[in-house]
């Protein structure tokens, strides 16, 4: 292994090694490994266990003091974190270097940086979850949140709120929940068979020919399509097809009626199909070949083998993958905004008229609150509530996916 030689290279002392004897009679080591990389004793080359927690505590206290002073005698959490981190890292590096050696100090420095990176990553997570739940609970605890749409609120004019001080009425997200579920369901119904059949083709039928390589490549390309481009595609495609159909008088829609649930589902399919293909392909590939052979050896045809042996064996993984794909598209905002648009009432019809969905509802309510000034707090709480519902749906789908993958996985063959 070439790395072996590198072990010694980090030690800078190598430059200062004594010159080998002039005539080269020296049969021993050119350099003394003992001196270069090995400590004198196996004991006493570590810092005490309390060192790290104590340094961290010192960092927190000193960081607080510094940030408090600099910020004009008031608490600023960001500054506190930064100063604490800097003090912690510098102190532990200097002390380790003094007490032990440079290598140990470098090791400790990077370890501390990794710890701090991790802590840094947790801050936004906690902050997001906190802001969504704190305000969201207020929203979802009202009954009207679950049972009403927004058609009443729209009727209430801004002017009346301003001039007569009328408070915004109840209103809820029923229409958005229905829209989200219906559009996602339609997208799933379209994507899953296509994705599943494609991955069956890739795994079971294609033998690495140009078609299968092409499909794999373009599925990869599809994975990278920005969601808003998928939305544009949905809108442009449906618009074009409607226009063509209109010229031949196939249906009564006028051009411009691409705003419907179906268009959104088409856009979501573009995002969903590659995910389904990828995960299903992976799951089908891990089905042991022995099972296929066992089935063939019983005189079972290939399509029956696939449907009755391969897919049942992989079904837990496939179901988990599909669930994750659903979780991904149900939170998509941009493509739906461009295709299904928005509506303030319940619409069960996927083929006529716009539809409201949870993500679009959240976006629209935050950027266009109903109610003026202080009165907009109800509107905001509804939006946070909708965000909470959306997060809970997504988390539940993720959880379900894990449970499916775990519980329904067939027991492994053999011991």
């Amino acid at each position: 292994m070439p790395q072996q030689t590198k072990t010694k290279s980090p030690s800078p002392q190598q430059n200062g090694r004594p010159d080998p004897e002039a005539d080269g009679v020296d049969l021993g080591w050119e350099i003394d490994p003992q001196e270069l990389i090995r400590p004198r004793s196996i004991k006493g080359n570590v810092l005490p266990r309390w060192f790290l927690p104590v340094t961290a505590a010192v960092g927190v206290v000193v960081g607080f003091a510094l940030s408090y002073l600099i910020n004009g005698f008031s608490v600023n959490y960001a500054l506190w974190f930064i100063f604490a981190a800097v003090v912690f890292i510098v102190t532990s590096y200097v002390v380790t270097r003094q007490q032990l050696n440079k290598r140990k100090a470098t090791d400790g420095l990077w370890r501390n940086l990794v710890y701090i990176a991790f802590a840094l990553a947790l801050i936004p997570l906690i902050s997001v979850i906190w802001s969504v739940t704190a305000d969201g609970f207020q929203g979802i605890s009202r009954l009207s949140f679950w049972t009403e749409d927004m058609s009443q609120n729209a009727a209430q004019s801004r002017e009346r709120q301003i001039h007569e001080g009328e408070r915004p009425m109840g209103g809820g997200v029923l229409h958005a929940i229905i829209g989200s579920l219906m559009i996602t369901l339609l997208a799933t119904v379209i994507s899953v068979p296509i994705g599943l059949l494609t991955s069956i083709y890739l795994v079971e039928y294609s033998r690495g020919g140009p078609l299968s390589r092409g499909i794999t490549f373009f599925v990869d390309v599809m994975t990278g399509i920005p969601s808003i481009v998928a939305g544009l595609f949905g809108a442009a495609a449906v618009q074009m097809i409607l226009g063509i159909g209109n010229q031949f008088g196939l249906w009564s829609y006028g051009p411009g009626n691409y705003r419907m649930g179906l268009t959104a589902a088409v856009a979501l399919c573009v995002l969903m199909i590659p995910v389904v293909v990828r995960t299903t392909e992976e799951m089908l590939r891990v089905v042991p070949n022995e099972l296929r052979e066992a089935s063939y050896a019983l005189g079972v045809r290939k399509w029956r083998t696939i449907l009755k042996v391969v897919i049942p064996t992989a079904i837990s993984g496939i179901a988990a993958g599909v669930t994750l794909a659903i979780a991904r598209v149900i939170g998509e905002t941009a493509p739906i905004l461009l295709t299904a648009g928005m509506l303030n009432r319940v619409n069960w019809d996927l083929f006529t008229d716009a539809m409201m969905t949870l993500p679009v509802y959240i976006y629209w309510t935050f950027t266009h609150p109903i109610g003026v000034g202080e009165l907009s707090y109800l509107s905001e709480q509804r939006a946070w509530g909708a965000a909470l519902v959306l997060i809970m749906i997504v988390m539940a789908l993720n959880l379900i996916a894990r449970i499916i993958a775990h519980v329904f996985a067939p027991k492994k063959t053999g011991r």
Partner: protein
Amino acid sequence: MTTDSTQTRSGGRKAGAKPENSLASGDRAGAGLDRGFAGLAKAAGIFILIILAFVALFLSWNSVGAVYQEEDGLILGRFLSYAWPFALGTVVVAVLALVMAAPVSIGVALYISHYAPPRASKTIGYIIDLLAAIPSVVYGAWGMFVLAPAMLPLYHWLNRWLYTWPEENWGWGIPFFAGSPGLGQNLFTASVVLAVMVLPIISSVCREIFIQTPKLHEEAALALGATRWEMIKMAVFPFARAGVISGIMLGLGRALGETMAVVMVVSGLGFQLSLISAGNSTIPREIALNFGETAPNTERWHQLIALGLVLFIITLVVNMIARWIVSRHREFSGAN
């Protein structure tokens, strides 16, 4: 059916339909079904190619209207002068986000793969994955209501010491920090939100690769007396390099196409150098804000779709570069 085919076999032999080979009387219907199913699977694969061809076709077809109008002729210049600020904004915000997210994500991935207590690391991995599960619109709301106000002190400080103060004293300040921060809704805040959004994506790719580092290499390094960091430098990083780069490119692709967070966090339109005051926009934001009010088949409609095509091409190029890097390093790395 096995029972049936047994009968068919013996029946065929008695009747002497094919005396030269009694095996040939296999069931035709079954073989036909087999071919039918294979054809169906193949058709689904081809259908995906058709969809993608349609995506490219529709986008290109509709983009033509942005650069050519019957009454004005070729108007490429008009489109370019309209599009470049958005394209630039998109790239700037994504790259800024990546600069912030990449080191932290690698740190997080390292923490989970090599530093966290082994029993906790799986749970911690799930928690980081949760970040990826949060819909972008929620991040947008968070950026708008929580992050933007929280960033304000920093913007004031940056503006004060990196722009106003040098300008008063030397007559020139760093233009990125010019202007009033206002509500904190600017390109910089957007890039922080994007950084938070792509962090779990990059870190989960890196984590997977780090975990796959051959135990033998790691142990070989440790057995030579390497510290943990030296072991990571020697065994983990060389193995994971291509995977880490492709993870970062994946994050870049996601950041380029991200819409809602930017729509909700950035306010303003025109291009400006300042990152900390209202202004600038990105391609996805421009499309999302205007597509709804645009009548189909007008020049504006075509312009927006052409913008989408530009974005598609940018992300495609980024993904291709990632793939190229991975394939170049394939033989040395754990990616693929």
